């Protein structure tokens, strides 16, 4: 029987020994107490369990509500920030569901639409995108593309705001992609008003045209005026000529001469102005005809020589070997530039000499039509020009300073005109000058070979043979390699070498190419710039010196702009034979090369 009782009751019976031996009041009381305690325990347990369940449920509910409220607040705060950003945009932003319902329009979109569209269909009717070629595009097709995930950016479109109000907009259509999903949940249309932008562009182009017209008018006016002034001035000068040819008193003759020379000055000024205004108006037409470069140089020299001789200045013309004897170019314009530069040289040189040097330069990569450059260098031994003043030389009506204006006269247009003419002839004017030592103005102009080019080449050859004989210097037949990265320096060193009589000149643009060229072909000397890209002069020299064969012993002369103490040692240490500091002068180049050749000959005869 007791086996079937609850385990607690069984224990209570056992602990009180109620069923063992005889039943006493004491045992029974103890048993009852245990039962009572058991009920109490059960009651307390139930109470505790129930209470804890209720309270924790309550707490969990509160927690849930807190969480819900907090997250709702957070979401709301984020949304309001996003909304504020959207509203602050000047661009219209519009989102559309895949079904075509308009989900959101920011205030800029509402403003731009004028009357808000009710449905995407309505929106599409009013939105006409245009292709880059100006073709009308199907907005529905674009929308489908965007829904498939394409981003369609910067389409021009017309937006019909109301029946008689349309604006130009620039619009983009993108898929509405949410984080973690690659399926578009709608479309985002962004657009902004281009009316103002377009209007501004139109205004700009109108203003530009007006400015161009004004400039043209000014040019025309100047040209006309100059012409109108020149005609009577020619009359005045002509009459003065006639007057001077008549019998005049000595005093009258003097007055008339002054009047004539003043008139001629005025005419020159007017011609300058006319030229300049023509150039500015783009009205100068180049006339291409056969010409002889050397003849032009000689012409200019002979015309200006009397004036130079008056100041005790000789004017020499020298020619580089290989100068073309004939080419096609605008001889008149070249002569004009040359006149200006030689005239300036005479004007600004007190003592010493003036020289004109003429050379042909062939471009590194030959042009298709065989064009090449004529290079003219005008050297003087004048006062020189400070480097910082050089750029202002080409400013119209500018002269170095007021005092020189007074001393030397002129319009201040000469260099501007010359510079513009050279540019028009496809060249560039360069100025090298050292204060106290003189200046070299040089310019190159692109010219065409004439039809007798083959004959010309032969004549060049003959001329060079002659020059070689004259110079009595066997070195002229030597092959020179110039490693130099700067294009201007390439031209200068090439021109200088040609002037010294060398004609077999190869240019390498960097050290790497120099090393490659030296290994391909046997050169007699290498002029090596020290600072070059890819491989500098020092490294290039080391590479050549360490290579196998004859090339390792080739004489190498450093060309360096770093005229610092110790540079010479550094060059020699790298294995170079000699050293020329930049800027390279003709004399130093000649002397150094002679020295190198002598050493080489000495070494080979030992």
């Amino acid at each position, binding site marked *: 029987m007791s086996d079937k009782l609850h*385990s*607690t009751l069984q*224990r*209570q019976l056992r602990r009180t020994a109620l069923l063992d031996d005889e039943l006493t009041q004491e045992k029974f009381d103890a048993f009852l107490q*245990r039962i009572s*305690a*058991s009920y109490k*325990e059960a009651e*307390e*347990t139930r*109470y*505790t*369990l129930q*209470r*804890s369940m209720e*309270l*924790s449920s309550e*707490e*969990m509910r509160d*927690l849930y509500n807190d969480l819900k409220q907090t997250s709702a607040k957070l979401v709301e705060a984020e949304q309001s920030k996003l909304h504020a950003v959207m509203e602050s945009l000047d661009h219209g932003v519009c989102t559309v569901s895949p079904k075509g319902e308009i989900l959101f329009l920011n205030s800029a979109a509402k403003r731009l639409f004028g009357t808000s569209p009710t449905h995407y269909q309505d929106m599409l009717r009013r939105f006409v995108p245009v292709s880059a070629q100006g073709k009308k595009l199907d907005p529905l097709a674009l929308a489908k593309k965007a829904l498939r995930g394409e981003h369609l950016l910067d389409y021009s479109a017309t937006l019909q705001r109301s029946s008689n109000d349309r604006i130009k907009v620039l619009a983009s259509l993108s898929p509405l992609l949410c984080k973690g999903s690659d399926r578009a949940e709608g479309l985002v249309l962004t657009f902004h008003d281009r009316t103002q932008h377009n209007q501004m562009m139109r205004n700009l182009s109108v203003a530009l045209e007006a400015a161009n017209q004004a400039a043209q008018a000014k040019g025309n006016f100047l040209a006309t005026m100059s012409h109108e002034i020149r005609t009577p001035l020619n009359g005045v000068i002509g009459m003065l000529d006639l007057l001077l040819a008549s019998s005049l008193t000595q005093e009258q003759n003097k007055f008339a001469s002054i009047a004539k020379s003043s008139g001629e000055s005025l005419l020159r000024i007017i011609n300058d102005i006319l030229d300049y205004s023509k150039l500015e108006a783009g009205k100068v037409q180049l006339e291409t005809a056969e010409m002889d470069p050397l003849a032009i140089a000689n012409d200019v020299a002979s015309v200006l020589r009397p004036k130079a001789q008056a100041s005790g200045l000789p004017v020499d013309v020298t020619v580089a070997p290989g100068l073309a004897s004939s080419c096609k170019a605008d001889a008149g314009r070249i002569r004009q530039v040359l006149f200006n530069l030689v005239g300036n040289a005479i004007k600004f040189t007190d003592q010493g000499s003036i020289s004109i040097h003429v050379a042909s330069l062939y471009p590194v990569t030959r042009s298709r039509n065989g064009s090449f450059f004529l290079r003219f260098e005008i050297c003087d031994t004048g006062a020189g020009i400070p480097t910082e003043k050089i750029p202002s030389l080409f400013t119209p009506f500018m002269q170095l300073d007021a005092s020189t204006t007074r001393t030397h006269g002129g319009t201040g247009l000469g260099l501007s005109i010359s510079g513009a003419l050279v540019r028009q002839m496809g060249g560039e004017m360069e100025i090298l000058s050292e204060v106290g030592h003189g200046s070299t103005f040089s310019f190159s102009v692109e010219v065409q070979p004439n039809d007798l080019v083959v004959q010309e080449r032969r004549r060049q050859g003959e001329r060079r043979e002659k020059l070689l004989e004259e110079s009595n210097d066997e070195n002229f037949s030597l092959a020179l390699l110039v490693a130099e990265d700067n294009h201007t320096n390439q031209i200068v060193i090439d021109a200088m070498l040609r002037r010294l009589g060398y004609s077999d000149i190869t240019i390498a643009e960097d050290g790497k190419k120099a090393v490659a060229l030296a290994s391909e072909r046997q050169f007699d000397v290498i002029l090596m710039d020290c600072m070059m890209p890819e491989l500098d002069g020092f490294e290039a020299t080391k590479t050549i010196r360490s290579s196998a064969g004859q090339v390792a012993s080739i004489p190498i002369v450093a060309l360096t702009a770093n005229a610092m103490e110790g540079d010479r040692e550094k060059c020699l240490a790298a294995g170079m034979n000699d050293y020329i500091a930049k800027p390279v002068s003709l004399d130093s180049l000649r002397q150094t090369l002679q020295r190198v050749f002598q050493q080489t000959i000495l070494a080979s005869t030992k």
Partner: protein
Amino acid sequence: MQVFSSSYTNDRWEPPLPTIDSDAILGFVFADPAYFDDPTPFETLTTTYSTIKLIGCSGAGEIFKDQVQEESVVVALVTFDNARFAVIHEQLESPEDSYHVGSSIASQLLADDLQAVWIASDGLGVNGTALAAGFNEKLPPSVSLSGGLAGDGDRFDRSWVVIDDKPRTSFVSAVGLYGDSLQVTCGSEGGWQPFGPVREVTKSDNNILYEIDGKPALELYKRYLGERAEGLPATALLFPLQISDDERSLVRTILAVDEEQQSMTFAGDIPQGAQVQLMRSTLDTLIKGAEDAATNWNSQTATDALCLAVSCVGRRLVLGQDCDEEVEATYASLGDNSHQIGFYSYGELAPTGFQPCDLHNQTMTLTLLTER
């Protein structure tokens, strides 16, 4: 190994103390706190066995075989075939000494063949977390380390440890067991489940808890206890705290409350910033816990075996008269030649999983001793 166990009630040992022919007798003894004022049963042991070494303490109920008793003393007399033992005790001046005392006793017990250490510590004037850490510092992980904190019924007033044959407060006693013949197994399980919201400890100082989620911790307990708050601090044992950090979670139970400070003192540290959750249990889960503590051991032993059962006072409070069921469950897992004695404690010391020995609360912690 031979074990004899006996229970002392109504001024006599039942079964009566036998004659034991050994000069190395180890006596595990657990008693009702009231025996502090009457050390007679201990003295009968030391007079009967002149060389006996006693280790034990007061509790909140004594475990003898498959029953929970009150107002009694229980003893297990152990003699070893080959193993040796040593009992060391030290006084705890204050809870801050706990770590130092732990490491000091451990160093005195340490020897090459040390297999196990079982600790009986004062249950109120100690920081059990620090005590365990002190022992862990000196003992290699191969040494089995377990034990319990003395109890004082549901009064939390005065707990004590048996030193020689006298009950003494503020002491830690430990027995070291030596020799390859020894087999020692530990098991510790709770059977409590966390419930309700996860809360944060916002103010605490070592083992004193002031605030949870910015509110007095005591307020939370009183709210949950309702009318049973009158039974504080004992009734707070109904809701132990689960403390979790990144590595593990521990169960902590209350030792005292301070109405003035609105604070609660726990048996181990409650770190500020820790995540805590109230826990609850039912009879079924606790019994299941006790059964789980006794799994994984071989009940068929070559010699006698002794199971030292240390169960938390909190479990006793929840189980009431049914606390017999948990000791019945653990007793049933033992073999025929096994003895079980133990006590209801204010804290259990045992390793869990791969973690070294630490202070636990609300668990049934078993240590099974036998010889090969």
